[in-house]
């Protein structure tokens, strides 16, 4: 599998009024083309910071003080280096947790898609925007694409909104998609559909997917590899089945034991 993302020794610190707080410590992680890498861990383990660092969406008081992130061989993040502006929305797309809040409530779906296409596809015509918008919504398995294009986010169901958000992330055909807890706000049936959709996108488009979740079952359904995070460190990573069936670290075992069962 060709390497797409290489995160090497990444350390990130937040500067707070009462001192520095290390958010990520020496994180190593690779994502290949056509590969789904899950990042799991409890709240506050650093999953979201890791995901956001790839697109440079870190708070003003947060700095990278060690390691680097490379995308397709080009370094985009390192201490004092931030070239994420070049890849945001083009080579990297991101899907956020709650689609009801990650879409602008005053803009129709059509306007959202047109904005991204106009920004990243130079000289794109109005007809091409319309054609590409319909195409991407249909790719998201939305049957009445025209109606959805003319809708505001609040006029859509939670599942439809999340598909639109995924469509927005992939409309420019990026090589990497980051999904940050994007199934958390959805019901179980819709979660399954979203996971299936991601799987088909990865298989059809050959994109790399960084799937951040605290749901181990969902990660086991979708991910090829899993990285377990705790207190800003990757404590264990490997093929999904291996990590979930034969966890080596105490923390991973505790995380797995915490999954509720019927009995």
């Amino acid at each position, binding site marked *: 599998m060709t390497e797409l993302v290489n995160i090497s020794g990444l350390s990130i610190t937040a500067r707070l009024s009462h001192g520095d707080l290390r958010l990520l410590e020496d994180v190593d992680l690779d994502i290949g083309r056509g590969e789904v890498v899950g990042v799991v861990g409890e709240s506050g383990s650093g999953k979201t910071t890791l995901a956001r660092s790839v*697109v440079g*969406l870190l708070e003003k008081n947060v700095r990278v003080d060690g390691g680097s992130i490379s995308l397709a061989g080009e370094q985009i993040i390192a201490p004092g280096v931030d070239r994420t*502006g070049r890849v*945001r*929305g*083009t080579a*990297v*797309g*991101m899907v*956020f*947790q*709650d689609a009801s*809040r*990650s*879409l*602008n*409530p*005053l803009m129709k779906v059509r306007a959202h898609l047109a*904005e*991204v296409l106009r*920004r*990243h596809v130079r000289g794109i015509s109005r007809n091409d925007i319309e054609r590409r918008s319909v195409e991407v919504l249909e790719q998201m398995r939305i049957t009445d694409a025209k109606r959805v294009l003319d809708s*505001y986010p*609040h006029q859509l169901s939670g599942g439809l909104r999340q598909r639109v*958000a995924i469509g*927005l*992330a992939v409309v420019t055909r990026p090589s990497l998609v980051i999904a940050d807890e994007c199934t958390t706000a959805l019901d179980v049936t819709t979660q399954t559909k979203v996971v299936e959709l991601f799987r088909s996108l990865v298989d059809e488009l050959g994109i790399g997917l960084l799937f951040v979740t605290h749901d181990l079952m969902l990660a086991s359904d979708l991910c090829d590899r899993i990285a377990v995070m705790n207190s800003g460190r990757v404590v264990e990573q490997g093929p999904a089945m291996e990590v979930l069936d034969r966890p080596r670290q105490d923390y991973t075992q505790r995380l797995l034991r915490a999954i509720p069962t019927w009995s």
Partner: protein
Amino acid sequence: MKAARLRRVAARVGALFASLFIALTMAFALGRLSGDPTANILGPTAPPEQREALRQQLGLDRPLLTQYFDYITGVFTGNLGESLQFYQANTTLIFDRVPYTLQLVAAGMAIAIIIGVPLGVLAATREGTWWDRAASTVALLGQSIPVFWLGMMLVVLFAVKLGWLPAGQSGTPRHLILPSLTMSLYPMAHIARLTRASMSEALAEPFIDSARARGISRTRVVWRHAFKNALMPVLTIVVLQTGILLSGAVAVEYVYSWPGLGQLALQAIQFRDFPLVQAIVVFGAVVFVLLNLLVDVIHSVVDPRVR
């Protein structure tokens, strides 16, 4: 869907009429609670027969309910009574002065918006920096400096010392500069503070990060995504401030001898011309009710969730 929307509109219009009715009733009641108007007009030493004659002339000898009914009917038929001071219909007096106040308010609010909105956006997008602190200080000063004092200082500086601008009266665009600058200060500060707060809130919304993650330019994220979402409270305050200024910018008009509604209100109060005072209060109430309706209309145009 359509029926529900119609019901909502009807309920809103009904509520506005109820507000108007309450405001009219209060204007009527306050006019009567401030003591015997004839004593106020003729003075405490006037003979009783003279006061009685005036009471009859003003219709104050009739039962209170009859007076109230006549007053409400008058308001809805455009008859706000006659001034005791000018011997003219109050509506004529008010509408003669409204264009002057309108000029002043339009110029003042334009300055307030042009300075206040960018100042608030600047402070919000550079939160915690010295830009933010400077903008907040300007806004705080704007809300703290008394309008009459600022007016006098501007007159002293630009009219008396420098002789660049006229000290008062109306007539040319140059006459408008100092009063509109004075008038703009408080709304400008209010708009700047509200824009900052509203923008800060909008910039913290997840759809902002989401737009940034899609590679949308910073300018577009700030203006198209954040500002548009922050606009509603700002628009509301702009419209309501306009209402406050329209219904009588007493201090500014007094300092600059501007012949507007505020000056008329002051003259009416000084002469104890209570029908005119009451008429001006009614005019203010109507302006406010209409502006509230305008806020609702703007809200539904700007935000599809309330349509």
